């Protein structure tokens, strides 16, 4: 069993160099499917005997993508497309793109024509989840994804493989939630950057492997004495809390992240696939129907503010930092409401624009300092 620091280093390395992870899976003769944000049905990939790997952008100079996307498309999609066009993602057998927002709708088409060497598999999640028919519809979308996946493997996925995959993913959710809770007792070791690396690295490992690593992390943490943290505690919300420079600024100001509502992190882990309810595909569809509080999924009443207030309460946070992905309209529509809800409940909020193409963090540093003084 590797020790705590070794495991953390392993996860951090995977985040720094996902390409190495991809290459190592390819070298093992595995097929790898790129999974665009967010809620890509990784279970289907896993059950088809392939490795799902998350594609969440990254810092790069935009050149080729400029012939496809206007400057006001979000940086995640800009860099995903750049990586596709410039060959960084070479080796992927396909990508799955969930058309959850207007930019993602268009990305399905840009990819199809721009990166024909890597087939594009679209999935369109139902948004009217109050309609019982949404379940049947989503099952049929999953079935289309499966048909396309089977052309890559030459094999059909079995029901047993799917049920096993669901178990693997539920177990992973569980272990990540356990980690997140335990991390708050060890904020000296689990700094914002480290916490992020543990969460994000899940996209670059087969989930059973990641579960095993995080389990070891957990037992390593349990051997440490509880650390009494004297700084300020916040919750992060948004699509991603990146890059590390931003998280370092939090640490510099003795701000800890004690919970998150990030699409790249806890949003995906907070809802399990139900154990009952039918076959695997139906159960996955039921999981989609119980997801909650996300800007990408239609819900009545704008419940995100209330949810963030409870997250703050449960984790002893005194404020929320909104990591607003630049040009992300679904998030921008939510912002005024959850901010107002948080302020009404007595919590502070700070909105930071997330742009992985950014190179200067001075302005953000000043704003975080001012926020810290308010907390």
């Amino acid at each position, binding site marked *: 069993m590797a020790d705590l620091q070794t495991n953390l280093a392993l996860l951090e390395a995977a985040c720094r160099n996902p390409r190495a992870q991809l290459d190592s899976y390819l070298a093992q003769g595995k097929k790898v499917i790129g999974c665009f944000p967010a809620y890509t049905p990784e279970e289907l990939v896993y059950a088809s005997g392939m490795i799902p790997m998350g594609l969440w952008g990254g810092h790069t100079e935009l050149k080729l993508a400029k012939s496809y996307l206007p400057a006001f498309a979000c940086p995640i999609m800009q860099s995903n497309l750049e990586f596709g066009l410039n060959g960084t993602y070479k080796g992927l057998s396909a990508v799955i793109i969930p058309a959850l927002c*207007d930019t993602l709708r268009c990305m399905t088409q840009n990819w199809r024509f721009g990166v024909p060497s890597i087939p594009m598999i679209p999935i369109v999640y139902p948004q009217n989840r109050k*309609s019982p028919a949404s379940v049947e*519809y989503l099952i049929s979308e999953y079935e289309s994804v499966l048909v396309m996946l089977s052309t890559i493997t030459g094999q059909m996925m079995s029901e047993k493989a799917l049920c096993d995959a669901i178990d693997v993913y539920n177990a992973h959710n569980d272990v990540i939630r356990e980690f997140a809770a335990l991390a708050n007792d060890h904020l000296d070791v689990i700094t914002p950057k480290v916490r992020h690396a543990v969460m994000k690295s899940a996209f670059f490992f087969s989930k059973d492997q990641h579960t095993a690593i995080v389990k070891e992390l957990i037992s390593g943490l349990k051997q440490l004495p509880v650390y009494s943290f004297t700084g300020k505690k916040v919750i992060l919300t948004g699509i991603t809390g990146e890059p590390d420079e931003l998280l370092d600024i939090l640490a510099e100001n003795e701000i800890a992240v004690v919970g998150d509502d990030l699409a790249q992190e806890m949003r995906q882990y907070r809802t399990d696939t139900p154990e009952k309810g039918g076959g695997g595909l139906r159960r996955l569809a039921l999981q989609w129907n119980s997801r909650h509080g996300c*800007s990408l999924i239609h819900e009545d009443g704008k419940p995100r503010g209330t949810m963030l207030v409870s997250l703050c309460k449960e984790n002893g946070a005194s404020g929320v930092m909104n990591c*607003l992905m630049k*040009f992300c309209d679904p998030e*921008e529509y*939510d912002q*005024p409401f959850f*901010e107002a809800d948080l302020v009404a409940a007595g919590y502070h909020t700070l909105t930071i624009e997330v742009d992985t193409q950014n190179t200067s963090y001075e302005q953000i540093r000043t704003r975080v300092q001012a926020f810290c003084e308010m907390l």
Partner: protein
Amino acid sequence: MSDTVTDENSAAPAAKPKRPKALSMIMIGEQTQALFESARLAKENGEKVGWSASIFPQEIAETLGLVVLYPENHSAGIAARHQADPFLQECEGPLGYSNDLCAYAKVNLTYSSVLAGESEVELPDGGKMVRPDFLLLTNNICNQLTKWYENLARQLDIPIFFIDTCYNPYDYVTETRVRYVRAQIDQLIRDLCEFTGKTWDDEKFRKIMKISQCNSYLWERANNLMDRKPSPLSGFELFNYMSCMVCNRGKESTTALLEQLNAEIEQHIAEGTSTYPVEEQFRVSWDGIACWPYLRHNLHTLKEYGINMVASSYGKAWAIEYDDLDGMARAYCFASTNGDNASTMISRRLEALKKFGCEGTIYHVNRSCKVMDCQMMEVQRQLSALAGVPFTSFDGDQADYRNYSEAQFETRLQGLVEVMTQNKEAKENG
């Protein structure tokens, strides 16, 4: 998306010297007023009034006798009359929204905030967009609408009746989409009846459906008459009629209006006249929503080069054909130009370029609208190669006046004209 500006202050400027207003234009002004008036009366009588997305199956509300108003259309009017500024400022300031969002939404969210008593911006129309009691939502146009309506619903504490039409990455509407949408239509009818106390009348629906079909046909016909050379209309004028398809698709008043419009166009054809004020040198298609705050500048610049816009990417968006509820489900999945994949977009545009003899495309990179822009570069490239005609783009916004440069528009157009001229000469020289 959508829209048009249809009232006394119509956005498309008439040619100078002013010709008398066409009867059809007077009719559309009256129809718009009548809709606002019936909304006011309905409110007075304690009836419930709705706000609706522009490509919602309007026939449902019509069958139930519900009055429904259209925020996209209304915001376009405010923008075209250069009244958007205080709305945009309020939205991006006190209301706390990002300036990145769709300007139709920004204008409307401020408007609704005034109706909710939370803002004090003066309403230039005196509040004729009355406070809604319910919302009718479809996402065949875009996803921003879903978010926008979520916000309206919470702000005004009213329900949303939603038909998720699903983005369509395939070249046809999958049967599972049809089943899902059909189930939602059935549910929506039941829920709406319960909420409003109205009852569904099958026979009336069949009648409305017939009217709507007839109107779709007439609308398409009017659009198709633009294929004459020279064209009988200045193309931008058709934008002014779009409101009858957006807001009044299931009404007989629209039939009368479109019959009149068709007759006027036919008369121009018979007499060899056109409302296009100068000689038509070039025929182009226009991709995207009009740039309402600068329509005058757009038109003026086009006219200088004798460019007439004879085809637009969404003139046909409301030409929705079906003859039963299943057909309706399928048609509304496939109606908007935005809910479809790039191949469908390309093939529809290619057909139009050919049919209308277009020599180029002007494509509006609309800062408000990601769904219309984020795949358009590739669509235009392919379209241009397939059709053998050049395209140009310009930066603008359908409602936010801050996102446009007159100089850029002029330069881009100049570039397009140069290529179109070369092409023309090459053609003439065999």
